[in-house]
């Protein structure tokens, strides 16, 4: 249904997932007769577009509206379907709707809670006395939704915060359900590795849920060979660091939501300048007004997205040169036949390609401007100082200056947290110093923010084991003389820092990798665990492992599901894709996350009171 979800080279067909989610929705809708309006809660719009196309609803004469407090439905609509996240605050809106719209006879209200119904919500409806107005209350059990050919997401933006600050572990449970669903579709996963408290809880849930389903334990080995569950809590540095991949930068500056990037249209040169005479190197890209779709179905973007930004500029320049030379080549084709075929076959494509190239050049230009601003370079330099553990225990003069100038508080806190992550905790005196500084400049309310960050584990007093400093050496998290163009190592995504999570995955791919890794990551917070789900008679986990290695001997790529509990960044995805591209790894990744995050969204979710 969505062309970008399939790619020929892949063993793993993610479309199954999309179709399953789609089917479920259809089933629910088919049970409802008569004209229908679907009201979507704001948080559901994104997931919705990942699964469906507007065409579906046009065919069934279903109208879709966004949930608003003062929504009034036309009289002739018989059914109103709410598709909602289970949040109590939304329920009050529903109550209002029912009261002012429920008078029409024969009208029915339905609720689909995604992903799960919550007793709180239903109680709330009951208390307001409108529960009886709803003829059906059901669940739409969407958990992992396909974002791209190798990425699935749950679109729960606050997962990390919910667990660490609010103590709401429902998102963990949801991840577990998601994992079981994945196994239902793709077969059971024989090997499971994991690190971190939350990750372990997820796996325990998943195991319990899986017990009830015998089907998961019969059958042959599924499409996924291995699962690596990683907790966001083990690596808080990576989400805070500035991403230097093309996609990561776009996300940080402008925000990519469900593959879509919205930019003011005037930033782009108009597309009707001259007719396209570019070579057909890229597939056409769909774009609506100001929204640009960003996914790997678009070749140019697929090529650019994971590159370090420094390389992107060069790449675009090279493309432009290639285009120039090929343009000359075509102008020398003089036969009528050739020109005819050119106009018929290639020209429409070329128009689209030209558009996509110019769009990306424009975006790259915009980002270039921002990247070249001195503040960006300064921030980055400070970050990188922390990453190599330079002056890590002293109050950073750079941060002090920023506070003194009353710079953006988010950025200040981010740098403090970064320092804390790199130093594996701040010395008491230093933490107090920062608290004083920030409270004096930004007001006493900041103490609340600090307490949030402390609960989330982003700020904490120093511990004896310097986990980061040790790991930096043992796992080569920072690489000197790193090349950003044609990189050899995943560290290019942050210019020279390799995200810990991605590095863990890389090392665990090696023979006996996880075993060696286990001792190295012992001083990271949280348990390390592994599990085998092979139930072939008499064959233990060990042999299941050798089965996999047989597979890789046969040059069939292993499929590894990497699951980030609490969100992952585009840079981490880029790093994993880079690993998958390396010949000798012979591996294919499926990345599962609760939400794609970046330094801004991650902090924002933690800061809000």
């Amino acid at each position, binding site marked *: 249904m969505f062309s970008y979800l399939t790619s020929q080279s892949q063993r793993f067909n993610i479309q199954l997932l999309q179709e399953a989610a789609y089917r479920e929705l259809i089933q629910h809708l088919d049970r409802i007769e008569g004209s229908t309006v679907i009201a979507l809660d704001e948080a559901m719009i994104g997931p919705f577009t990942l699964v469906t196309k507007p065409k579906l609803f046009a065919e069934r004469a279903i109208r879709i509206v966004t949930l608003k407090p003062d929504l009034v439905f036309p009289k002739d609509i018989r059914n109103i379907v709410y598709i909602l996240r289970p949040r109590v605050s939304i329920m009050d809106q529903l109550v209002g709707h029912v009261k002012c719209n429920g008078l029409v006879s024969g009208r029915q209200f339905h609720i689909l809670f995604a992903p799960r119904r919550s007793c709180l919500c239903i109680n709330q409806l009951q208390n307001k006395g409108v529960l009886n107005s709803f003829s059906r209350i059901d669940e739409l059990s969407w958990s992992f939704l396909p974002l791209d050919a190798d990425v699935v997401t749950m679109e729960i933006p606050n997962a990390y915060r919910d667990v660490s600050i609010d103590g709401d572990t429902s998102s963990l449970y949801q991840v577990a359900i998601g994992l079981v669903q994945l196994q239902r579709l793709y077969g059971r996963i024989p090997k499971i590795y994991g690190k971190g408290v939350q990750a372990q809880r997820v796996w325990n849930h998943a195991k319990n849920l899986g017990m009830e389903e015998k089907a998961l334990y019969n059958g042959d080995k599924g499409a996924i060979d291995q699962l690596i569950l990683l907790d966001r809590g083990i690596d808080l540095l990576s989400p805070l660091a500035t991403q230097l991949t093309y996609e990561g930068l776009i996300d940080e500056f402008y925000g990519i939501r469900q593959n879509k990037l919205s930019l003011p249209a005037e930033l782009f040169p108009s597309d009707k300048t001259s007719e396209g005479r570019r070579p057909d190197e890229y597939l056409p890209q769909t774009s609506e007004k100001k929204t640009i779709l960003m996914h790997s179905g678009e070749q140019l973007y697929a090529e650019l997205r994971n590159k370090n930004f420094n390389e992107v500029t060069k790449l675009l320049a090279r493309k432009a040169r290639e285009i120039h030379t090929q343009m000359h080549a075509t102008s020398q084709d003089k036969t009528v036949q050739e020109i005819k075929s050119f106009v018929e076959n290639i020209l429409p494509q070329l128009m689209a390609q030209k558009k996509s190239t110019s769009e990306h050049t424009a975006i790259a230009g915009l980002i270039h401007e921002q990247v070249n601003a001195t503040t960006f370079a300064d921030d980055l330099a400070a970050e990188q100082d922390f990453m190599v553990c330079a002056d890590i225990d002293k109050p950073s003069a750079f941060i002090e200056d920023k506070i003194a100038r009353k710079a953006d508080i988010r950025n200040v806190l981010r740098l403090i947290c970064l320092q804390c992550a790199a130093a594996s905790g701040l010395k008491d005196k230093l933490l107090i110093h920062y608290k*004083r500084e920030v409270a004096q400049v930004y007001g006493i309310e900041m103490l609340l923010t600090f307490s949030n960050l402390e609960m989330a584990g982003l700020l904490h007093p120093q511990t004896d084991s310097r986990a980061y400093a040790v790991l930096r050496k043992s796992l080569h998290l920072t690489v000197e003389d790193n090349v950003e163009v044609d990189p050899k190592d995943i560290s290019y995504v942050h210019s020279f820092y390799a995200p810990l999570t991605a590095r863990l995955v890389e090392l665990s791919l090696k023979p006996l990798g996880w075993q060696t890794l286990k001792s190295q990551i012992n001083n990271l917070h949280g348990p390390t665990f592994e599990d085998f789900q092979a139930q072939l008679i008499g064959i233990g986990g060990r042999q299941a492992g050798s089965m996999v290695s047989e597979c890789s001997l046969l040059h069939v790529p292993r499929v590894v599901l990497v699951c980030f509990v609490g969100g992952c960044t585009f840079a981490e995805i880029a790093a994993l894709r880079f690993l998958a591209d390396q010949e000798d790894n012979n591996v294919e990744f499926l990345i599962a996350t609760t939400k794609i995050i970046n330094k801004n969204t991650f902090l924002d979710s933690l800061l809000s009171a």
Partner: protein
Amino acid sequence: YHFKNAIESKDLESNLSVIGNAYTQARCTVEAELCAETSRLFKLQKTLSTKYNASLNGLSVHDTIEQLLKMGELKEAEKIRSDFKVPDRRFWWQRILNLAEQQKWDELEKF
């Protein structure tokens, strides 16, 4: 103590002592200290506000100094600086930015 702290953002400064006490009980000395400091600041702001006929209430230490500098009350600003132990580094940043803003270049030269 998080509860009480949460009240603060909505309610008035009268809660500050309660919050401060709660912090002390939870052995968060910095926070308690800062709370005491803030209530001291609020009092000072009130007197200053009436004195200079300007609204300083509810501002942070930093903003208070900034406002005073803008009004040219260097003495008062210096006083707050010593009262609230503002680090030199930050204070001079403020002064420099402030002078630059007001384009008093000759004063800036004097440093």
